[in-house]
């Protein structure tokens, strides 16, 4: 699994092809779909991204991954894990700090879905499935996962249209 690291302002970003340790037990799927405005011939593409920003009293951290594939509609499926607890087993590999807990608790899954639905029209059509996630029981927040979802969708779309991943990251993170 190859990874590249990018620094944009105070943010550190890891772009990873895939991360099997971020797969988790799924409690529920959150779904959303709408008819496509245009049909885009997107190839299937998968990414995992990790974001980290120090804030002094705490950090801002999230790891999120998934796949974009061709579809007639525009749809999102977000895998949700059990709720957050303190002291969960950190079995998800991190490139940016201490290892993470594999999973996407409801408070983060809802933030991811909200963020994806807001940005999704850029795709035209396609199916996005979120099935990789890792969180820190102190440093992760709904806001961090909203950022991660925006960045992941940008990378999936960018790969589909053959954009350079690092320039996509710089464009998106600079706007945070």
């Amino acid at each position, binding site marked *: 699994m190859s990874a590249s690291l990018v620094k944009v302002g*105070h943010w550190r970003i890891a772009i990873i092809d895939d991360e099997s340790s971020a797969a988790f037990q799924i409690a529920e799927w959150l779904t959303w779909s709408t008819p496509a405005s245009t049909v885009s011939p997107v190839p299937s593409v998968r990414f995992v991204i990790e974001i980290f920003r120090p804030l002094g009293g*705490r950090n*801002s951290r999230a790891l999120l991954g998934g796949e974009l594939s061709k579809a007639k509609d525009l749809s999102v499926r977000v895998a949700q894990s059990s709720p957050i607890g303190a002291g969960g087993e950190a079995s998800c590999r991190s490139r940016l700090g201490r290892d993470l807990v594999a999973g996407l*608790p409801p408070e983060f899954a809802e933030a991811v879905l909200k963020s994806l639905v807001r940005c999704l029209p850029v795709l035209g059509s396609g199916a996005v499935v979120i099935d990789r996630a890792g969180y820190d029981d*102190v440093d992760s927040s709904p806001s961090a996962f*909203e950022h991660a979802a925006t960045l992941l969708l940008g990378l999936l779309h960018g790969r589909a249209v053959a954009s350079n991943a690092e320039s996509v990251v710089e464009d998106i993170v600079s706007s945070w």
Partner: protein
Amino acid sequence: MTGWLPSSAQRRLARFVAAEGGAFTADDLGTVREYLSSQGFLDDPANNAMVDRIQSAIDSGRPLTEGEQNFMTHELTEANLVNDGMSQEAAHEIASGTHPPFSNYDPAVISQYPDLFNENWFHYWEGR
């Protein structure tokens, strides 16, 4: 526990731990504000809100709350370790050991910015 730290850092850390109980001064807050600003951490609205609350408490003579005291202890410890040459990440880990997890932001600030904190932070303050 801190024997591996430089002696100057040990003295400063001891001073800040001793200051728990609310005896932080306007100078201490100035050090925290300067450190947070130098690192770009005042972009964070929760940090800004904590600094504003503590400034208001010092100005009015109100004793600091538990969250405010822990915030000051954490940030002063981190600031002085960084100023002594330690990396921010290592200094943050040590500073995080000066208080229980989830306790270094006041619950009013956590409630003001719920998207910036996860449920563990809310649970810590429930019933306290």
